[in-house]
């Protein structure tokens, strides 16, 4: 437990903290060159991953990128065609789901329609032969944990999406799993509820100290909830790191583009605007409007372009600037001067804000 609090208090250091302890503490989940091929389709291809104990681990990627298959491999619903998976140091190859102390919250919640809420939650206990009274007591306790006490005797059909999700969560948590797997847990909820559940899931995880692995296609959700994120593309993990790592230092064009939007500066373009040559990622919020003619400041790039679009988005304003043959996206606070479509605008960014990527 001591170790968990350390990890959670300093999520950015989580990697170092636990890697120094790896000898004594096995990883919560580890995938060693795991593949899952469906005939010619490589759903998961040569994936290596390590999830540390007590971590809130996000698996992010577009649909069909293999993240859900990866989760199902850990749960045991699928078996890898190659590679090995270990949970807390124990190999789980060939072990069926019902013998893994891992529980899943399903995307469609998968509540049993012929049982009421409390029986749904107590299902795992019933299977293990826990007595009826004790079952109910624990189920009520767990429902309290997810703040759903007053719905104990309802049928799943009478609940809203958010409430069903909490039942699914309680049903998984009552078994005290070593690892909790969540498949797009917030995907079906509306924005307000989603934001609320993000906070609740996070504090729940902190409270219980259980390792959470969750799958999402929503980059902002992945960034805001995870201690570390693995970005998936086409069955492979393309980058693993803290949310700050992933956002500030994307290693590939795909990550830069998928996690938040980014301006990709091609080598040819860099040459024309006088920037160092290379393939760079530049986040829209790092570009600022600047008064023309004051471009002598060291370590900055100045360009002039034509304003193509301006989008008002409440707190921010997004603006697209055409500079030579490239379009640059800018995000700026919605206060201040509004750029006018069709006019020229002068913008500036710091060289430090350009992040170099692998040439692909």
């Amino acid at each position: 437990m001591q170790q968990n609090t350390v990890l959670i208090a300093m999520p950015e250091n989580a990697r170092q903290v636990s890697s120094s302890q790896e000898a004594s503490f096995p990883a919560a989940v580890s995938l060693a060159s795991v593949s899952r091929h469906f005939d010619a389709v490589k759903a998961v291809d040569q994936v290596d991953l390590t999830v540390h104990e007590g971590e809130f681990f996000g698996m992010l990627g577009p649909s069909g990128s293999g993240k859900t298959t990866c989760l199902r491999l850990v749960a045991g619903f699928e078996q890898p065609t190659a590679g090995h998976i270990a949970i807390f140091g124990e190999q789980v190859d060939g072990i069926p789901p019902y013998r893994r102390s891992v529980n899943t919250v399903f995307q469609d919640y998968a509540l049993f329609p012929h049982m009421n809420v409390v029986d749904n939650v107590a299902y795992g206990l019933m299977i293990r032969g826990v007595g009826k009274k004790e079952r109910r007591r624990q189920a009520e306790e767990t429902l309290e944990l997810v703040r759903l006490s007053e719905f104990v005797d309802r049928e799943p059909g009478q609940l809203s999406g958010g409430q069903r999700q909490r039942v699914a969560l309680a049903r998984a948590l009552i078994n005290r799993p070593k690892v909790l797997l969540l498949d797009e847990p917030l995907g079906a909820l509306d924005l307000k509820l989603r934001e609320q559940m993000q906070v609740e899931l996070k504090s729940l995880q902190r409270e219980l100290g259980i390792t959470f692995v969750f799958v999402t296609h929503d980059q902002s959700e992945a960034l805001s909830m995870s201690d570390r994120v693995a970005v998936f593309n086409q069955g492979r993990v393309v980058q693993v790191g803290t949310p700050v790592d992933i956002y500030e230092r994307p290693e590939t064009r795909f990550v830069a583009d998928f996690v938040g939007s980014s301006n990709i500066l091609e080598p040819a373009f860099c040459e024309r605007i006088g920037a160092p040559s290379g393939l760079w990622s530049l986040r829209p919020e790092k570009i600022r409007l600047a008064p023309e003619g004051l471009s002598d400041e060291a370590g900055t790039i100045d360009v002039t372009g034509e304003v193509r679009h301006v989008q008002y988005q409440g707190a921010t304003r997004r603006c697209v600037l055409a500079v030579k043959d490239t379009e640059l996206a800018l995000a700026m606070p919605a206060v201040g001067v509004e750029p006018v479509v069709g006019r020229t605008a002068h913008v500036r960014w710091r060289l430090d804000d350009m992040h170099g990527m692998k040439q692909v």
Partner: protein
Amino acid sequence: MNTRDASVTPARGGVWGRLSDLFYRRPAILLALLLGPPLFWIGVVYVGSLLALLVQSFYSIDEFSGRIVREFTFKTYLELLRPSNLDIVLRTVLMAATVTVTSAIIAFPIAYYAARYARGWVKALFFIAVMLPLWSSYLVRVYAWKLILANEGVLNWGVSKVGLSPLIEALLSLPVIGGPSLAFSYIGTFLVFLYLWLPFMILPIQAALERVPVSMLDASSDLGARPGQTFRKIIFPLALPGIVAGSIFTFSLTLGDYIAPQIVGSSRLFIGQAVYVHQGTAGNLPMAAAFSMVPIVVMAIYLWIAKRMGAFNAL
């Protein structure tokens, strides 16, 4: 650009136009028009004749003149309770129950395979295979079974070739269900019923299983349930409405059939045959009506029990 000319609510005109406007404003009229004819049919032709049947069963027959006495009496029902008649009822209900349970057991794996695993052309093949027997005449199929089950039939020939004739002989020497040959025993009747009604059991179970999402089975397994437990706690309860629907078919079809047991089986009567005999040669319509009420009452009791046991909770 001359938007002034075009009306925002252009009239469609004509009788049909006005009619559809009327339906839009008063949807109840459309509903009444759609439901009227079938409701009339069910109400008058179906329920009406059923009530006529019920009334008939409370008449009796004058045993000397053979005339029907149109006076309310329980005499006919009391006659139904005579041992020879009760035997017929019991025999039929037992047969129907056995056929139902056996067909449910045989149908379930087939339906499960079709719902969970069969895709594309395999699924099409499944539907054709299940329904194909229904495309040929019922009589042809029953007579075919008579030939299959006869002592000189293909089944006995095959069994004797592999040296299992003693097995058939042992089966036929059993009391009650045995007989001189499979074609003249309850076993034969049972096999024919099983064959005839199996599709009516497979299809509803398949439809019920089709509606159980895979994630529900994954969830059960995920929560620690072994396959056997998942079957008992999740798959079976969720398939139960389908099993009950199928059993309504197999049960009531067996209760009412009078041809199959006539062609294949011992000479002892089933309810359907009793009805046939009483309303035909015997001219005892009240008795035929009283016999006809038995399957209706049995089905009502069956459905009531099924409902009490929660078979329809997952609907």
